[in-house]
C-alpha cells in the first residue's frame, strides 16, 4: 500500500505538525477482492481524520513491525494513558477514594479497595503525602482518571505505597521511556554503579533508594544529567564516577 | 408539545421541507440542543435562521445628537445590537513630542447590562481589544487630522473622549462602533477658544460653535467564517460564538482599506478575502449615504 | 454589617417587650445605652475622639492638611472621610465585607457633614489656591450595633477637639504668595461645631420604633431610618436602610422622634465636651483600656 510505503520511507525522519499522508480511498475495499486491508496502528503524534493522516506533534517517526507507527517526541507534561504505571502523591482522603496527584491536568482517584488484600474492614494504611506506585485503569479525556494498585489477578505486583526513605524527583518524559525500555543500557549501567531500588513512573517521576543518602543523591544527579547526554559522553561520565571522581 | 427533538430526525425533516418550513416544527429545542447543526442546516440552503441571505446586513438605524450633555452623540442599531457613542471635548496640554497635535481617546465599554456574558468590573479582553481596534482605525484612516485639534501650539489642544457603550450585544459590535463614532464625530460641535494675550488663559465662547473637519469616512464590515469555508456577513451573537473565525474589513470612501483585521481563527484563502473587501466597499457607500441622510434630516429639523 | 443569629422565640420576646416599652436591657424605646466620650486621645492628630456606646467602640482622628480647593467651590475647604472597618471589630469585616461597609459609612458621612453644618469657608486660606483639608479617619474598634450614631458623635467630638494652626499669608518679592504656619502651638483656629448634626438611627420593630438598637434588636427589625439632626432640631439628612418598607405614617413618626431625641442629645454632649476641655492638662487620661 502506498501509505505504508510512504510512511516507511519517512521512518527516522522528523515530522512536523501538519505533515500529511493520504490514506487510500475506501473504494479499494471491494467485496470481490478477498485481500483484507492491512491493519495499521497509529500511535502518539499521529491522527487520522477521514482520509488523511496528519502528524500533530513534532518529532521523529518510528515504526514497529508489522504496521505500528508513532512519533517520538519530547514532552514534559504528563497526560494520563490507560495501562501506564505512574508515581503519584496522595493529596486527599475522602469517603472511599484517595485523590492522587500524578502531574496531569486532573487529580486521579484511587479506591480504598484497589490494594492487594484490601476489604471494607481492612483498609490500607495510606496517609496524605504518601507516594504510591499505581496503574491507570481509566484514563480518557472525558472522565476522571482512575488508578489501581493491583493487577488483573488481584496481586500487588510491585504496586502500592512506598516504604520510608528514598528520594523522588522529576525528569522529562523521554528519559523515563529510555529508562524503561527493555534494551536500556542506561539502566544497566546505573544498576551496575549503584545497586538499590529505582521506581520509574511514566509520568516522569522517579523514586530512588540506595544504601545511603549520599549514593541516592549521586544517583539522582546522574539521572538528571543524563537527560541531555550522548551515550559516549555518558559512558565517560559513568567511568569517572566509578573511579570515584565525583 | 415536543420537549426535545432528536437532531438527526430533524435534519432529515429539514432537508425535506427546506429551512423556511423549519419554523413549524419545534425549532426552539433543536436550536438550543444542537445550535451548530441548526445553523448549518440553514447555511446549506444559503440562508440564515433570521431569514437573511449570507451577504445581507441587518437593518441599520441611526439616531444622531440624542444626548444633549455630550458635545456629539449617536446611537446605532444594527438589528438588535445597539451602540451609543458620546463625545466629550476637553482642553489639555499637548505632548512635548507632538506639540501641534490634539488627542482622540476612543474607549469601548461592554457593561454587564448589554449581555449576560459580561461581568461588572474592569473591561473584559474583548472590550479592550475593541478599544484598541477603534484607536487603530482612527489612526490608520486619519478621520480627523490631529493637527486640527490644536488650539495653541505646544500649549493648548482639544481632547476628544469618544466613549462607546454597548446597550444590547447581539454580535458585530465593531461595525456598529465605527458607524456610531463617525456619526458622533460628524455631529460634534466645539466651542470657540481664544487665548487671552495678557493672562495666557484660554477663553471659551460657548455660544459660538463649529463642527469638525472629517477627512475620511471609514466603514467596517464584519464577517464570520463557518466550518472553515462559508462566509457570512454581519454575524449575530449566536453566530459569532458558533463560527470559527472573525474578520473585519474597514474601507473608506476612496475604496482604500484602513484595516483588515482577523485576530486568528481558522484560515481563509485569498479569494475569500477579496470577496470580503468588495462587499465592504459596497457597504461603505450604503452607510455613508445613511449617515449623510440622517445628518441632513437633523439639520433641517433645527 | 455585623449580624447575630436570633431564634424565633427570642424575636417574639423582644417584640412583645418593645410593644410594652420595655427592652431587654431595661431601657425605654427612646433611651441610649451608656455612652463614654474622650477627646484628644491620639497625640499625632490635630483632633481625635473615642466614643463607646454600649459595646460599640469608635475612634476618630482628624488630620488637617493644606490642599487645593475644588474648582467648583474655590472659596471653601472640604472634608474627606475614610472609615476603616478593622477585622478586629468582627471577623466579618475581613476582606470585602469590611471594605463595602466602609464605603457605605463614609458615603453617609459625606452627606451628613456637608456645608450646611460646618463653616467650610473658614477653612479657606486663599481663594482658588489653598485651603484646609480635613481628613477624618474613622476606625471601628468594636461592633455592637448602632454604628452610625456612635460615629457621628465621635466625629462631632473630634471636630470640637480639632486645632488647626493659624496661617499667615505674606507676599514675597515676585508677587507670589507665601504661606507661613504659626509656630506657637496655642495659636490655632477651632472649628465651630455648634451646628454639626448627630445621627439618630430609629429601628422599626413591630409597630414601634426604638433608638440605639442592639444587634439582637436589629435582627428583629425590617427597616430603620437614619435621621441626622442639628442642635436646633433641623434635619440634615435622612435615609432608609434595611430590606423592608415602611408606611408613610410611621416614617413621619420616626422623623419626629428622631428630631426629638437628636435635639436632646446635643446639649449634654456639648456640655460634656466643654467640661472636658476646661480640665485642660489636669484631665486624667483614660485611654483605650480604661
Amino acid at each position, binding site marked *: 500500500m502506498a501509505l505504508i510505503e510512504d510512511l516507511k520511507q519517512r521512518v527516522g525522519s522528523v515530522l*512536523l505538525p501538519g505533515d500529511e499522508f493520504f490514506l487510500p480511498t475506501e473504494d479499494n475495499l471491494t467485496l470481490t477482492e478477498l485481500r483484507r486491508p492491512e491493519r495499521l496502528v497509529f500511535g502518539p503524534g499521529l491522527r487520522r481524520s477521514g482520509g488523511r493522516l496528519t502528524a500533530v506533534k513534532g518529532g521523529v517517526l518510528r515504526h514497529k513491525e508489522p504496521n505500528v507507527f508513532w512519533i517520538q517526541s519530547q514532552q514534559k507534561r504528563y497526560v494520563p494513558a490507560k495501562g501506564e504505571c505512574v508515581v503519584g502523591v496522595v493529596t486527599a482522603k475522602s469517603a472511599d477514594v484517595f485523590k492522587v496527584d500524578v502531574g496531569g*491536568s486532573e487529580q486521579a482517584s484511587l479506591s480504598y479497595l484497589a490494594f492487594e488484600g484490601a476489604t471494607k474492614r481492612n483498609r490500607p494504611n495510606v496517609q496524605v503525602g504518601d507516594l504510591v506506585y499505581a496503574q491507570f485503569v481509566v484514563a480518557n479525556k472525558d472522565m476522571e482518571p482512575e488508578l489501581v494498585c493491583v493487577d488483573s489477578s488481584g496481586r500487588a505486583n510491585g504496586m502500592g505505597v512506598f516504604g520510608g526513605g528514598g528520594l523522588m524527583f522529576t525528569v522529562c518524559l523521554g528519559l523515563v*521511556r529510555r529508562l524503561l525500555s527493555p534494551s536500556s543500557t542506561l539502566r544497566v549501567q546505573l544498576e551496575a554503579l549503584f545497586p538499590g531500588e529505582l521506581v520509574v513512573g511514566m509520568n516522569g517521576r522517579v523514586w530512588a533508594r540506595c544504601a545511603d543518602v549520599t549514593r541516592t543523591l549521586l544517583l539522582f544527579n546522574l539521572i538528571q544529567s543524563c537527560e541531555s547526554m550522548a*551515550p559516549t559522553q555518558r559512558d565517560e561520565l559513568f567511568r569517572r564516577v566509578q573511579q570515584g571522581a565525583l | 408539545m415536543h420537549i426535545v427533538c432528536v437532531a438527526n430526525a430533524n435534519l432529515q425533516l429539514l432537508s425535506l421541507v427546506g429551512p423556511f418550513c423549519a419554523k413549524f416544527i419545534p425549532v426552539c429545542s433543536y436550536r438550543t440542543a444542537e445550535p451548530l447543526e441548526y445553523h448549518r442546516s440553514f447555511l446549506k440552503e444559503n440562508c440564515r435562521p433570521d431569514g437573511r441571505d449570507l451577504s445581507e446586513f441587518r437593518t441599520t438605524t441611526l439616531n444622531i445628537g440624542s444626548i444633549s450633555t455630550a458635545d456629539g452623540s449617536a446611537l446605532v442599531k444594527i438589528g438588535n445590537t445597539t451602540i451609543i457613542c458620546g463625545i466629550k471635548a476637553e482642553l489639555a496640554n499637548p505632548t512635548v513630542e507632538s506639540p501641534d497635535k490634539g488627542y482622540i481617546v476612543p474607549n469601548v465599554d461592554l457593561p454587564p447590562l448589554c449581555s449576560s456574558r459580561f461581568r461588572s468590573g474592569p473591561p473584559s479582553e474583548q472590550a479592550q481589544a475593541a478599544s484598541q481596534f477603534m484607536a487603530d482605525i482612527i489612526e490608520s484612516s486619519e478621520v480627523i487630522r490631529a493637527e486640527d485639534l490644536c488650539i495653541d501650539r505646544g500649549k493648548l489642544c482639544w481632547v476628544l473622549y469618544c466613549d462607546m457603550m454597548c446597550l444590547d450585544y447581539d454580535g458585530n459590535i465593531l461595525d456598529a462602533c465605527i458607524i456610531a463614532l463617525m456619526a458622533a464625530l460628524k455631529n460634534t460641535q466645539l466651542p470657540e477658544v481664544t487665548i487671552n494675550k495678557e493672562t495666557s488663559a484660554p477663553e471659551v465662547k460657548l455660544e459660538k460653535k463649529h463642527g469638525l473637519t472629517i477627512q475620511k469616512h471609514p466603514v467596517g464590515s464584519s464577517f464570520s467564517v463557518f466550518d472553515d469555508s462559508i462566509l457570512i456577513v454581519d454575524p449575530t451573537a449566536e453566530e459569532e460564538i458558533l463560527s470559527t*473565525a472573525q474578520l473585519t474589513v474597514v474601507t473608506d470612501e476612496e475604496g482604500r482599506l484602513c484595516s483588515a483585521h482577523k*485576530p486568528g*481563527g481558522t484560515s481563509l484563502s485569498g479569494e475569500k478575502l*477579496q470577496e470580503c473587501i468588495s462587499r465592504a466597499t459596497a457597504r461603505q457607500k450604503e452607510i455613508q449615504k445613511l449617515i449623510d441622510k440622517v445628518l441632513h434630516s437633523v439639520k433641517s429639523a433645527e | 454589617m455585623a449580624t447575630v443569629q436570633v431564634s424565633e422565640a427570642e424575636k417574639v420576646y423582644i417584640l412583645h417587650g418593645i410593644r410594652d416599652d420595655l427592652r431587654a436591657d431595661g431601657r425605654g424605646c427612646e433611651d441610649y445605652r451608656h455612652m463614654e466620650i474622650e477627646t484628644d486621645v491620639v497625640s499625632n492628630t490635630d483632633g481625635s475622639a473615642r466614643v463607646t456606646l454600649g459595646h460599640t467602640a469608635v475612634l476618630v482622628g482628624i488630620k488637617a492638611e493644606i490642599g487645593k480647593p475644588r474648582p467648583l467651590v474655590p472659596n471653601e475647604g472640604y472634608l474627606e472621610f475614610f472609615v476603616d472597618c478593622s477585622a478586629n471589630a468582627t471577623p466579618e469585616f475581613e476582606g470585602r465585607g469590611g471594605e463595602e461597609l466602609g464605603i457605605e459609612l463614609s458615603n453617609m458621612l459625606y452627606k451628613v457633614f456637608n456645608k450646611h453644618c460646618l463653616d467650610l469657608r473658614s477653612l479657606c486660606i486663599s481663594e482658588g489656591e489653598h485651603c484646609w483639608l480635613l481628613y477624618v479617619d474613622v476606625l471601628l474598634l468594636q461592633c455592637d450595633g448602632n454604628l452610625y450614631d456612635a460615629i457621628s458623635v465621635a466625629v462631632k467630638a473630634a471636630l470640637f477637639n480639632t486645632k488647626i494652626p493659624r496661617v499667615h499669608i505674606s507676599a514675597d518679592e515676585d508677587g507670589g504668595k507665601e504661606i507661613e504656619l504659626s509656630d506657637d502651638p496655642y495659636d490655632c483656629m477651632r472649628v465651630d461645631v455648634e451646628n454639626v448634626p448627630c445621627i439618630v438611627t430609629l429601628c422599626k420593630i413591630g409597630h414601634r420604633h426604638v433608638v440605639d438598637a442592639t444587634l439582637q434588636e436589629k435582627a428583629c427589625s425590617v427597616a430603620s431610618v437614619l435621621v441626622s439632626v442639628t442642635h436646633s432640631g433641623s434635619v440634615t439628612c435622612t435615609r432608609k436602610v434595611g430590606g423592608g418598607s415602611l408606611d408613610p405614617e410611621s416614617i413621619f413618626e420616626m422623623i419626629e422622634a428622631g428630631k426629638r431625641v437628636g435635639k436632646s442629645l446635643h446639649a449634654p454632649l456639648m456640655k460634656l465636651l466643654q467640661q472636658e476641655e476646661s480640665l485642660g492638662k489636669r484631665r486624667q487620661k483614660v485611654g483605650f483600656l480604661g
Partner: protein
Amino acid sequence: MEECESINVCLREFGCEQSLLSRPDGSASFVQGDTSVMAGVYGPAEVKVSKEIYDRATLEVLIQPKVGLPGVRERSQEQCVRETCEASLLLSLHPRSSLTLVLQVLHDDGSLLSCLLNAACMTLLDAGLAMNCLFCGVTCAIDADGQIVTDPTAAQEKESRALMTFAMDSTDRKVLMTSTKGSFSVQEVCVFFCFLLVEVLSMCGSAGGVGHHKIKYFITVRVYRLYVFHSSTAAAVYSSESESIREDLPVLQRLSETPILQKPLTESQNFPFFAILVFYQIHTKSYRL
C-alpha cells in the same frame, strides 16, 4: 502584463532556541534582528472552575511588555495570538484543562507581533502539544515611496505608510490572522498576498542520547515576488531534503547551540537540514508595482 523580476527581499537574521527554561512545560525564545521574545507554556493543567470549558482546553495568552504593565495594546495582541493558537492547536484533546502561554517581550525593534506569533508557535511545538499545523507570522511595511519592506525595524515601521502583519498556516498556506495599520489600496493588499511566500526554510534537529531528540526548527519567512496573474489555484512546491537522524549523533553542548541561531547553517555542522519551500499564491486580477 509584464513579468516581474524577482526582487531581493529579505528578513533580518533570526533565530530560535527551544527548551531553555526548566519550569514551563515548553519554552522558546525567538529573535528577529533586534526584536526578541521569550515564551513559555504551561499545561494541560488544572483549570479554574470559572474558566472551564466542557469540550476543550482553555487557552490563556499573557503578553508582558519590556517595561511597565500590559495595557490595551498588549490585550489586542494577546487576542490575535490566542485566536491564532486556538486555530492550530487541537484543544478538544484536553477538555476541562488549561493552557497558559506567557510571552515576554525582551526587546522591540519592529515586527513585534510577528515575532510574538513565531515564538508562540515554537513554544507550543516544544511543549509537544497536539497541533493541526504550524504557523508563522511576518510583518510587511509600505514606505512612503510605495516600496515594500519585509520584517521592518522600528525605524522603518515609523516611516512607513502602512503596516501589515499576517500569520499563515503550514498546511493549507492560508491566512490565519491579519492585522493592519495605516491605509492602503486594494491593489496593495493583493500584492502583499502575492508576496507572501512562506518558506519553512530550515528546520534542524540535533539528536543526542539513546532515543532522545532535540529538534530545532527554524522557520524562515521569505517574501518573493510572484509572477502569477490570473491563476486561481494555489500551487505548492514542497521540496524537502531530509536526512534521517541517527540515534547516537554526537551531542552539541548546550552553550554552543546559541550561536547557531545567528549563523547560517552549513553542512559541516552536521545538522540534518530540511528546506521546505512553499510557494503561496493567490488569485489576483492585476497589479502593478
